[in-house]
């Protein structure tokens, strides 16, 4: 923690001296910088922060999304939230999904990134291939896999007599989440691989040379050199993949629509369905507020724990 603070604060301290000298010039430069920063901040406020604040406001009402008038109901929505089995089920599903997704995404991405960082033949081609899922639309990917699970896999199962393939796993309440998990991981890995790859390129090659002189094998090199050096990348990848998995939505819409039954209804999907078509706008706004707090707490917690670990290494 301390380390990173020092590096962040350094530039302002060193430039403080020059500021007093050429105040005017810096001022005009500052305006250019503000011009770069402000429009985006304003847009962010108008399209993101403001609607979010509105959502908090509505979460204390009983608005159903279309009527012209509504009443304030205080914390009633929040109290109902904790008694609603649908909400609790969706939390259980989402956390199960997100934890597994985050773990697998990081293991697989790191393994693939190590391979792509090595001097293999056709390295650029492989890099392109592994980045491809990231630029495909989630919905299209979802529909393609929907077709694979519904038609192609059962067809193969039929042909080769593999019993468990003959039925669509997306139609099985106990297995549907695995189908979604596979597709989610496949697509999410692309971005995490890029981050790990850039991390791996920061590892100085001299360290490997020195350690191999000392007789370290590949396994030792990975755990003692590679992993500690790319620790900050591990932190950011864990946080990002956890956050993205917690907010899983598009994949589910495209593949199961939350079914069978409610078995793959994530929290985001529940908020969307209940809020817009279910006429529970205020109630689901309350759900969204709670969920926002939950994700924030988890992300901050992860950052704290993982950054502490970075220093220990």
């Amino acid at each position, binding site marked *: 923690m301390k380390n990173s603070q020092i590096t962040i604060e350094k530039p302002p301290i060193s430039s403080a001296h020059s500021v007093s000298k050429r105040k005017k010039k810096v001022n005009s430069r500052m305006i250019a910088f503000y011009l770069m920063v402000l429009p985006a901040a*304003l847009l962010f406020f108008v399209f993101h922060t403001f609607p979010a604040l509105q959502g908090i406001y509505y979460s204390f009402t009983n608005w159903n999304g*279309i009527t012209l008038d509504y009443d304030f109901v205080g914390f009633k929505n929040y109290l*109902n939230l904790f008694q609603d089995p649908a909400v609790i089920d969706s939390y259980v599903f989402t956390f199960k999904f997100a934890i597994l997704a985050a773990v697998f995404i990081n293991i697989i991405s790191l393994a693939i990134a190590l391979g792509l960082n090595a001097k293999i033949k056709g390295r650029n081609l492989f890099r392109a291939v592994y980045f491809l899922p990231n630029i495909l639309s989630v919905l299209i990917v979802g529909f393609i896999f929907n077709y694979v699970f519904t038609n192609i896999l059962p067809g193969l199962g039929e042909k080769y007599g593999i019993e468990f393939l003959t*039925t*669509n796993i997306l139609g099985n*309440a106990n297995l549907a989440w695995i189908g979604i998990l596979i597709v989610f991981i496949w697509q999410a890995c692309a971005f995490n691989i890029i981050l790990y790859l850039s991390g791996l390129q920061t590892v100085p090659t001299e360290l490997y040379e020195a350690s191999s002189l000392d007789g370290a094998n590949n396994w030792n090199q990975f755990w003692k050199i590679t992993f500690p050096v790319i620790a900050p990348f591990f932190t950011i990848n864990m946080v990002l993949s956890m956050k993205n998995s917690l907010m899983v939505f598009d994949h589910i819409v495209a593949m199961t629509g939350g*079914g*069978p039954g409610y078995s793959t209804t994530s929290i985001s999907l529940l908020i969307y369905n209940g809020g817009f078509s279910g*006429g529970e706008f205020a109630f689901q706004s309350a759900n969204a507020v709670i969920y926002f707090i939950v994700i924030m707490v988890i992300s901050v917690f992860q950052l704290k724990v993982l950054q502490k670990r970075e220093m220990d290494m």
Partner: protein
Amino acid sequence: MKKTVSLLAAGVLSASLLAGCGGGEAEGSKEEGVVQIEFFHHKREAIETIDKLIAKFEAENPNIDVEQASPPEPSTVLRTRVSKADVPDIIGVGGDVTYSDLASAGVFADISNDSSLDKVQPAYVQMLKDVSGLEEVYAIPYATNAVGVIYNKTIFSELGLEIPKTWDELLSVSKVIQDAGKIPFFHTYKDAWTTLPSFNALAANTQGEDFYSELNNGKILAGERYKEAAEKMVELTKFGHKNQQGVAYNDGNTAFANGEAAMYLQGIWAIPEIKKANPEVDLGVFPFPATNNPEEIKVVSGVDLLFGMSAASKHPEEAMKFVEFMMEEENAKQYIDEQNSFSALNGIAQEDPTVSDLQASFEKGALTDFPDHYIPNGVTPDKTLQTLVLEKDVDAFLKKLQADWEKVQSRK
């Protein structure tokens, strides 16, 4: 000073972006004297038919430009638009919770005393009153649908089968088909909503006469009255196919069109889709034999498309003119012919031989509304039914549906 300028610049920039989002409203009168009205509807299957009718209308009325909008997830889109007061001039939805919510929210103009309603069969006007719980009428029922058992005539004649008239006969016919090595019903449980047509037919005939009146008194009877329907739903799952929980509606239409099963539990809206997949298929529809008393069996039929006029429309006369045009006999006939639906208007009959077995029920008025139109939107009975047909646990189903319904009711 410069700072304020830049702030202003950024403000103008974002304001212009905002303006870009709301630009649609200002396009009202592009050409001199041409009035633009918007017709928003939920019948994506009917886009082509309505295009043709609009072209004809615009030829007759060159000063009116009708814009058709029919997005996916129409109910969600419509609710979002209503919530930001961007209401289409004419709204075409079904006679279900969407209608009742919009009517209660004051979105529609009150047309209780409009002469157009005289052209409509009173039963369907009554359905709108029942489903919304309001005495006023806020829309004109236009087209109606029906749920039955769609069957493959070729397979039925190959096996020498008669149309079943009672529940027991339906089961024995299914048994014969199964014993002959064929699939009796092509279930498509992957899409949760496809459980609703057969559930509606079963529940409407078994829930009891006083179900809705008790509901209006605030008493929800789902837990006890849906028992028979739920048990029969489970019974039907036994006559399905191996991958029935993994196949969705579109794939089901194709499979049924290709003769993979003898019967299909869907509304008549599926027929055009099935025929698209295989124009040669010889189909029929018989009333869903939900009980063992053929005299009392009613066909579930609801308002599939109604026209509601926005209370805030800037061009109410032009909008009404278009609706009246749609209700002219020739045009109403064209709509039901191309859409394979029934008309809510007096004296316009569906003559397609496919649905002739249902005609008798329509003539003697043995019709009843969709029970799920009375279930509040937040309950999502389709998902609970999907669980029922997978797990086959009737008690758990009844308990959950009752609890969900009470939960949604208590939050209002």
